[in-house]
């Protein structure tokens, strides 16, 4: 526990590159102060492995969204370091930030589609990061982009809705359109902030299945926040519990017993803190211990 808090950073560029290859997203002593003594994030140290699905669990206000917003630079930390795809987010210039964001797809709880715009145009908007200049109608997008968008729509099963207004779709369909939009970026990392919180259980499962399938097919690093524990266990390779901006739980989902599941409930909701003690935490951390030398070095660099 103690050494994971020592801020020794890897010294050689080779080592750093190796770590960047293994961990798409790294958070190093990240603290976010919202002013008035409110800590959005409190000394968070996390490394997200490339190609894995991680789920952040926690009540509202626990810091899940804040954490996600740090990863694509919508928030900047008060202290600490956020490193995404080998780039330190706080050291980037505006144009560099834009190019990193192009590699990070984001899915929102409220879908954030432009309601009166057609479904296809909404998906095309996903390519804006790599296009120059504003586009105010569908016909202003290059033909290749429109074709790509239609293919992405087909992938999420909504090609027949291409020319319908986005706000005439159901919630589950809108979220699938939002996923198609994110796919237009050909992202390496996909962030999903409560992607199914506004959906009914059936649509929620559909969206989660779709995300899982896409993650596997495109080798995407997915970081999602959820508040349904079963859905999270079903979906993720790894679960991270947050409470008042602190990491209170971190473990792999493989081989969870029913008892451990109920412990996750209580640790995340904060009803029974004692049951998920540091010994458990340490065990989990040990279970995830790296096997190779470089990974071990990475661990010393405080990336769990």
């Amino acid at each position: 526990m103690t050494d994971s808090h020592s801020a020794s950073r890897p010294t050689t560029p080779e080592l750093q590159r190796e770590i960047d290859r293994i961990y798409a997203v790294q958070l190093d002593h990240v603290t976010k102060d919202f002013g008035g003594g409110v800590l959005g994030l409190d000394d968070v140290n996390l490394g997200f492995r490339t190609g894995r699905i991680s789920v952040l669990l926690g009540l509202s206000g626990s810091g899940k969204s804040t954490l996600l917003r740090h990863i694509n630079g919508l928030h900047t930390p008060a202290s600490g370091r956020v490193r995404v795809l080998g780039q330190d987010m706080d050291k980037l210039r505006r144009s560099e930030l834009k190019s990193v964001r192009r590699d990070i797809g984001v899915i929102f709880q409220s879908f954030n589609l432009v309601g009166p715009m057609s479904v296809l145009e909404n998906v095309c908007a996903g390519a804006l990061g790599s296009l120059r200049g504003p586009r105010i109608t569908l016909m202003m997008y290059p033909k290749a982009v429109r074709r790509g968008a239609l293919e992405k729509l087909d992938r999420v099963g909504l090609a027949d809705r291409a020319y319908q207004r986005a706000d005439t779709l159901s919630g589950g369909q809108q979220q699938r359109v939002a996923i198609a939009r994110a796919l237009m970026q050909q992202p390496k990392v996909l962030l999903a902030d409560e992607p199914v919180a506004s959906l009914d259980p059936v649509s929620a499962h559909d969206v989660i299945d779709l995300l899982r399938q896409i993650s596997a097919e495109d080798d995407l690093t997915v970081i999602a926040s959820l508040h349904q524990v079963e859905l999270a266990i079903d979906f993720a390779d790894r679960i991270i519990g947050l409470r008042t901006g602190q990491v209170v739980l971190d473990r792999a989902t493989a081989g969870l017993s029913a008892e451990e599941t109920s412990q996750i409930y209580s640790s995340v909701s904060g009803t029974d803190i004692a049951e998920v003690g540091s010994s458990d935490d340490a065990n989990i951390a040990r279970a995830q211990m790296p096997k190779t030398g470089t990974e071990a070095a990475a661990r010393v660099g405080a990336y769990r």
Partner: protein
Amino acid sequence: MSLVADRAAPAVVAPQRPRPSGNSTLAAIVLICLAAGAWSVWSLGIDLATIASSFDNAVGFFSRIVPLDFPEFGQTVSLVVETLAIVFLATLLSVVLSIPVALFAARPTRMGRGSQWTARTLIVFARAIPDLVLAIVFLRMFGLGATAGIIAMGIHSVGMIGKLYADAIEELDDGPRESIEALGGSRSQQILTAIPQTLMPQLIATALHRFDINLRTSVLLGYVGVGGIGLAIADSLRTLDYQRGMALAVIVLILCIVIELVSGSIRAALMASTGAKINGGTWVDRMFNRGRTPGVGDLILTPPWSVARFRRFASAAVLIVLTIAALWRVDVSWSALVAGLADLPQTVSLFFPPSTGGTLGNLVEQLLVTIQISLAATFIGAILAVPIGVLAARNVVANRAVHKSFRVLIVVVRGIPELILAIIFVVISGLGEVAGTLALAIGAIGLLSKLIADSVEETDLQVQEAMRTTGAGEAQVFFSATLRQAAPAFVAHIMYLLDTNIRSATLLGVVGAGGIGFLLLNASRVNQFDVLTMVLILMVAVVLLVEALSMWLRRAVR
């Protein structure tokens, strides 16, 4: 106990007693406002006796205006078309000016704090300077005719349209814009992708609303030499030809009501179509999209000619045609425009330095009269308009016939331009403050009642339901749920009325309804432009004071 648990223990913060809100200050200010209103009514000598005694005048007036002398049909159409063309171009100009101003002024789209502040200030000043004054300035610059009126109304309207656009942008869901930001879109991409289509219905509705207002203003601008029906009315009344003047006024009245109804129905259609389904086939789809089904199989990459797309293209075409037609009709003199702009420094120098014309006492006295008129008119107007507005709300009065007929009353009163009311009252109760006050007070029914009715209808019905389930009577529900929810809106609307009335009171002075407006007109007639500047500075100061007061009140009453 573990380290994790220790860290997780939340810091204990003692519950803070909320600071007492400024209730006593609020009550004092409201009382002062009410007292000022009542005092103004009393000091202007408005009482039932005065109104009753002018009854004979009214009878005399009506005997002088019948039979109404309508101009021949061709001339009427020509006047109406000229007026509509001026108003159309003025509104279009103000929309074109307002869009960038609003983008700079709104928080999500601003370029920086400095430019946001500048844009907000521009909007406030555009509102504070009456279009009449702007018209006088521009008439000096560009000569008599439509150009000055178009530019004057176009600039003054930015005060309302720019503000409403900026508010609308701020009220939009920021999510879509943020999602474009998150995927690496540039600032302009964020704004132009997320905002235009979402904002379009509101954009058009606001423009139509302003069109109604500018139509009324254009009549007034006739008095200083801008063309159209207003000029014809001013000419007839100057020669005491009441039969012709009132006939033209009736035409204006009909025009206003027709335009109000047309724009109202367009606005309603716009609002209804947002969120409506546009998929599915209509005859338009069948005509343009024979055998087309969008899908990835045949890779159709152009949107089909849906009703919505057809309507978009048709509207754009109509807008362009109307603009060309209006420009052609009012015959904007481009050379005068350029010459006027070239002479700008010289024109500006005419207005500076501000001068009192040697009668500061008189100026201040007349300014106070104008303030009294607006206070009294707001006071009487509120007394008349609040009950009417409440009765017109369909969630207060269940009887359809009752609330509908009050709605119709509001529309009819709204249709009557305040200028026409002022002219009538000037003739009935003689030149002076009483005429202006009564005209504005009646006009308040049109403006305030509608706003009151709308905000009562906007209250959360579920709260009322909840109260009913506890066994509260209808009156209890009204006072505890409906009125309480609508109270902040009431305050805001009444302050808005006061704010409008100060400017209207100034303008109505032009037709002899008392106050500083008459001095304004005189100063411009004898080319005392430096006095005009002085009057303007005084007025802007008053308007800004009222604005500050109303902002404070709106924050206090929540």
